[in-house]
């Protein structure tokens, strides 16, 4: 396996997985939001909730479709490009993914049809159940796949057989491996935040156009309450996750913090240009002692630098260092937006401040950027291993030559950019339409779903 083929295979996986994660991270949050909306509708009988539901349902169905197809690719890509990894980790990771398919994928797929097209066929209560089941399915899916990912970061409960395969010894230890609870909560909150910012951006956009739009107001208010609660919570959870990483993957923390050298009372490096050759941080702007305070919760705590680890085990510092800063920076930006919204709400000006609405529109994609930066931090920070400390990335790849991988990579890039570019365009177009009292559900497009002209629309479902 030459290094070019390895790099191409890595790039291909990074490309397909990054594209994929955009969709589920949005659908996890959106499915829960839809369940809440439909629940509120059933409870209050206020039609505005079901109209908001129908508005987002169209966006949900496009996003979900893109998530499904980009996910199928991943379930086969382990084998095509990472066959040695598959052979060795299959006995452990395979069953976890098997459970993801059996508990989550089928559940989502089975009830998605009812959720999208079935309101008139099954009635309100059953339809609400279908929405809840789909939302629960997205949660289960996150549960299993994060267990898989966390095991690659902090492997536990295994032994190794003579063929070099990882063999299960204790399934509970495997599933609930040391970094799993932190990663799961961090990811779920990230999905909720991502969705909340998309909803806030769309609502903000329509409030700029017409600040009396009642549906946009409700969306905006709901999204910002979510942000007020989740943004600070996410920062706290992130801190716990970081401490957990320091315990199990100290080299990753060193790269994130940009510490080439070990320190007692380490500074917090805000900015700098990492130089992997010279092993030093150039032009650094740092706050003394704060690094130790955050990581060890002590002013003079010992923080290990990369010099504490063999050079062959160093992750690439610059990528991890920067992606971590992007994520944290956006996180604090989100916190600020939450606080400002509280202040505006108190003054009764939440819907009358176009500048704030514009900031929210600007922050619409922020969740996705933060989420992908976070994943880059943790995945690149795991390098040069696929299974941390045990299986090197270079020893995981398929015996496939660079030519074959570059062809498939080209095909993926071309098809993904066309297909998901078109999807992005359609979603933006859906978002540009104002939410109105005449929202049509998706079943209106089924031939036997009675198509009612908007003017005479009864404004509620049967």
């Amino acid at each position, binding site marked *: 396996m030459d290094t070019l083929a390895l790099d191409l295979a890595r790039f291909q996986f990074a490309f397909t997985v990054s594209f994929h994660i955009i969709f589920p991270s949005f659908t996890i949050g959106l499915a829960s939001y839809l369940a809440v909306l439909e629940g509120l509708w059933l409870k209050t009988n206020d039609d505005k909730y079901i109209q908001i539901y129908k508005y987002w349902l169209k966006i949900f169905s496009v996003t979900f479709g*893109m998530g499904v197809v980009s996910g199928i690719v991943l379930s086969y890509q382990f084998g095509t490009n990472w066959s040695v990894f598959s052979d060795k980790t299959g006995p452990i990771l395979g*069953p976890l993914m098997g459970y993801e398919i059996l508990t989550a994928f089928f559940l989502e797929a089975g009830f998605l049809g009812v959720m999208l097209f079935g309101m008139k066929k099954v009635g309100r209560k059953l339809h609400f159940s279908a929405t809840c089941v789909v939302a629960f399915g997205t949660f289960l899916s996150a549960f299993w796949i994060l267990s898989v990912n966390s095991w690659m970061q902090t492997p536990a409960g295994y032994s190794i057989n003579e063929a070099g395969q990882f063999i299960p010894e204790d399934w509970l230890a495997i599933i609930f491996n040391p970094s799993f609870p932190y990663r799961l909560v961090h990811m779920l909150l990230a999905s909720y935040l991502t969705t909340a910012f998309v909803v806030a951006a769309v609502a903000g956009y329509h409030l700029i156009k017409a600040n009396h739009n009642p549906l946009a107001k409700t969306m905006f208010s709901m999204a910002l309450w979510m942000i007020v609660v989740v943004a600070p919570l996410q920062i706290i959870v992130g801190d716990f996750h970081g401490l957990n990483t320091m315990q199990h993957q100290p080299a990753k923390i060193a790269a994130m913090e940009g510490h080439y050298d070990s320190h007692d009372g380490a500074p917090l490096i805000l900015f700098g240009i990492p130089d992997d050759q010279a092993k030093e941080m150039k032009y650094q702007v740092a706050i003394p002692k704060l690094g130790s305070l955050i990581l060890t919760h002590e002013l003079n705590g010992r923080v290990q630098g990369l010099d504490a680890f063999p050079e062959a085990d160093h992750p690439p510092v610059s990528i991890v260092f920067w992606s971590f800063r992007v994520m944290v920076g956006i996180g604090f930006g989100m916190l600020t937006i939450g606080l400002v919204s509280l202040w505006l709400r108190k003054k009764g000006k939440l819907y009358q401040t176009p500048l704030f609405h514009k900031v929210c529109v600007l922050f619409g994609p922020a969740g996705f950027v933060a989420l992908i930066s976070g994943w880059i931090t943790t995945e690149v920070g795991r390098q040069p291993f696929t299974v941390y400390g045990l299986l090197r990335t270079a020893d995981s790849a398929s015996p496939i030559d660079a030519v074959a991988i570059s062809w498939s990579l080209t095909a993926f890039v071309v098809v993904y950019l066309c297909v998901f570019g078109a999807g992005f365009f359609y979603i933006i177009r859906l978002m540009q339409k104002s939410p109105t009292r005449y929202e049509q559900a998706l079943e209106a497009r089924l031939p036997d779903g009675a198509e009612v002209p908007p003017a005479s629309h009864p404004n509620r479902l049967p």
Partner: protein
Amino acid sequence: MDYALIWYGLIGFAVLIYVVLDGFDLGIGILFPKASNEAERDLMMNSIAPVWDGNETWLVLGGGGLFAVFPLAYSIVMPALYAPLIIMLLGLVLRGVSFEYRFRTKRGKFVWSIAFFAGSIAAAATQGIMLGAMLQGIEVDGRSYAGGWFDWFTPFTLFCGFATICAYALLGACWLVIKLPQELADRYYDVAKHWGVALVLCIVVVSAWLPLTHEIVSERWFNLPNSMLYFMVPILAVVCIWQLFKSLNNHQAVRAYLFGIGLFIVSALGFSVSTFPYIVPFAVTYADAAAPDGSLKFLLTGTVFLLPMVIAYSGYAYWVFRGKLKHDEGYH
């Protein structure tokens, strides 16, 4: 207990269910150019819109299951079938997004009709090619694939690809007869017959071609006394074919559909007779490829409960959307 054998059966079951379910759904994509206008294509697509996602999940179960319980087979077969697999995945991406995109645009609708057709036919053909590549055998050295990058590209595998297109189109036509409004549906009886004839010819050719060129296969089939049992397979095939055409002639759509599925099951039996106990023909047996019992048991425990549930609620989804699509006056 031989857990590996149970899993061999379960994975085979998942693949068979996939082929039967996504078969009609890919078949509809293959028949897309047959429709007289975009409105009819709307109907065709809507007849599967609520269920296609569930159908495709069985493919994920087939792949994911192989990774879980036969990781060695997964890691050999995937690189061996590299190119057709990637083409299949991209085909599935194209057709999958078309379900939503087609209804999101008026100007660009035809683009997604073409994408739906092209994606479906690419997925069907490559699935057949992969099946053919498995049947002709995969070269293995140690724990990895040792053949060339175009081993999958032979006249035999290409022919299998064509056979699969015929098979899926047949199922798709039967499904359309069941789901479309009466006046549109009847035309698809003839469509089903044409693809059915093509499929029968393909099955005959493959059944002769394989044993003639592959001694290892012919030895299995013509090996007394087992042959007595094996020859049930072609007999069953003849019964299915006969009943299929009889039902099509009598305009009994559901019956025709079921015997079409019967033909798929018989073909799967034929595949097993030709390759069992190999999971990577003719190099690695299911027992050699199996993960340790700890993994097999852990996943089996849940599967015993989950799989019947999956079948039950997937069935429910079909039940909710049962019956013919009612014809809206606005569509003609």
